[in-house]
């Protein structure tokens, strides 16, 4: 889906722009771009699970949050003197560090947790649900319920999670001063590199035999099952990978933003994440990344001009995309390209794997 001629060598241009950005942008804008690139890592996961596997999930905020909290707990503890408790715990009268906070004092364990915690949680969850052959809108609703539950849990456990305010007040990570111009720049490089890595890995995965079977499952799960495939593990792996990507994005986002809170976890942010990918095009990795950038830059501009208007604009955009651009902007580009080729007389439908097949 991503080997569209316009995009085939487009990555060189995009990567070049990404590399030049630190020299061109102000520290504020670079920080903003860094956050969006972190979100783009999550969006790639949505392409995998929604675009390729055809499974709509409305709970990516949960995994984004898991990654964010994992890194934030480490940052919080590392900013304290030995034996001291985070401020909000002291205010709520907690006398000792809860056991599940303890491993996060160790940076290596914290980094591992960013991957392991969402992988295990999403894997077990998906296995239980997919094994019972729960699909489609029912699955989407369950993921939404998980998002709601997780956000409520974080808010209600004020004394150990920081509640509504979440975790903030970070200082350094591995000797890097967060919030400074230099810190921002280094963080931007790390984010860009991880995004490139996740992009390449996903592209490879989509082109593999595993990816073909995943798409086959999307097209006709029963047919694939009756060809002798146990489709459950294929779907579980795709879901777990998308969760891990979301968590990596969430951890990097938290570093850029300097805060993690339930506001990034619940139902509304989870739906917003789907909107990014819907706008960009769920069958295209480039589309998803573009969607993240377009929607979020628009959000930044609109919210600063008309703070109340954003949610309405978002809702309107989503309705318009669903009605008129089912394959997002990437699908539009593809359609226009096909039209151009047809007019050119050089149209060769054979071998085309564009988004056209979805236009039924």
């Amino acid at each position, binding site marked *: 889906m991503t080997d569209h001629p316009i995009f085939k060598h487009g990555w060189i241009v995009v990567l070049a722009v990404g590399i030049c950005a630190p020299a061109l942008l102000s520290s504020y804008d670079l920080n903003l771009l860094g956050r969006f690139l972190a979100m783009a890592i999550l969006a790639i996961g949505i392409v995998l699970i929604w675009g390729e596997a055809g499974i709509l999930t409305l709970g990516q905020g949960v995994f984004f949050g898991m990654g964010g909290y994992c890194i934030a707990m480490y940052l919080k503890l590392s900013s304290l003197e030995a034996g001291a408790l985070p401020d909000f715990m002291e205010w709520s009268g907690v006398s000792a560090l809860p056991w599940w906070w303890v491993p996060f004092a160790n940076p290596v364990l914290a980094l591992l947790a960013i991957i392991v915690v969402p992988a295990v949680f999403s894997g077990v969850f998906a296995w239980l649900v997919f094994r019972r052959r729960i699909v489609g809108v029912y699955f989407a609703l369950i993921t939404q319920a998980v998002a709601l539950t997780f956000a409520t849990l974080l808010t209600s456990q004020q004394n150990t999670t920081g509640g509504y305010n979440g975790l903030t007040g970070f200082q350094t990570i591995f000797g890097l001063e967060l919030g400074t111009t230099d810190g921002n720049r280094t963080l931007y490089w790390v984010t860009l590199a991880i995004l490139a890595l996740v992009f390449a890995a996903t592209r490879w995965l989509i*082109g593999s035999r595993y990816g073909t079977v995943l798409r086959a499952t999307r097209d006709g799960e*029963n047919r694939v099952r009756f060809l002798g495939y146990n489709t459950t593990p294929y779907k579980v792996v795709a879901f777990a990978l998308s969760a891990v990507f979301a968590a990596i994005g969430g951890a990097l986002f938290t570093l850029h933003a300097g805060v993690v809170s339930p506001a990034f976890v619940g139902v509304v942010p989870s739906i917003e994440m789907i909107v990014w990918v819907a706008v960009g095009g769920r069958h295209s990795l480039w589309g998803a990344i573009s969607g993240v950038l377009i929607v979020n830059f628009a959000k930044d501009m609109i919210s600063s001009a008309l703070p109340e208007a954003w949610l309405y604009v978002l809702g309107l955009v989503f309705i318009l995309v669903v009605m008129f651009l089912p394959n997002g902007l990437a699908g539009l580009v593809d359609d226009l390209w096909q039209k151009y080729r047809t007019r050119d007389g050089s149209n060769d439908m054979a071998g*085309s794997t564009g988004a056209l097949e979805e236009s039924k």
Partner: protein
Amino acid sequence: MTADAHPAPYLLKVDGITVDFDGFKAIDNFSMTLDRGQLRVLIGPNGAGKSTLCDTIIGRVQSAAGRVSFNDEDITNLPEYEIVRRGICRKFQTPGVLPSLSVRDNLAVAAQKDRRWWRGFGRGVRKAEAVRVDEILEQVGLAARATTLAADLAHGEKQWLEIGMVVATEAELLLLDEPTAGMGPNETSKTAKLIHSLLGKHAVLVIDHDMSFVEELGAKVTVMHQGKFLKQGSVAQVRADPEVAAVYLGRAKE
């Protein structure tokens, strides 16, 4: 193979299968056997339970009583992928091709021998499987359409593609549910030839009620009626049978 000295067990043995849909017996104590490499046609009026029988053999519907054995192994009510792995594959009534994959990829997914997910992390199709896919493309007459998306195929071509997918699994027993549905006479006779070319290597159980197609296949016919076994014999015998005629024609009288 002669009937009196049966050297090997039957390939498929359906023994007293009963399927109960909330009190309605879709299949009622039905039995039949099928030999290796043989062709059998299953006919019967609408609602006779033919497709339900297929569903039961393939593990899509659970039977309330009875036993299905394949190669002398009890496969009753196993998960469908376990049954497929033992060598039974089914073509559905409405073509179940994978629309957003190319014709070649449809066949490659079917031909893949190792279907465990962690073995899929590589590009390209294994050599032996690719060769097999090319053979099947020729056999089902879709070689020129290999790179076309399955969604863009004509209806008859979709039927052939799905037959090809079923063949690609190298299953010993192929269940073809109405393989000529929606086909013209030319395509129908092409399909009959295709099915004949599969025999020997595969046993084939065809469900259809197009009598001209059944005659063209010229194989032994089993007749089902109201979930029960009714008759078995050659096309001519079954045609001449008054009970079968009553079942098919008598309905008009009622």
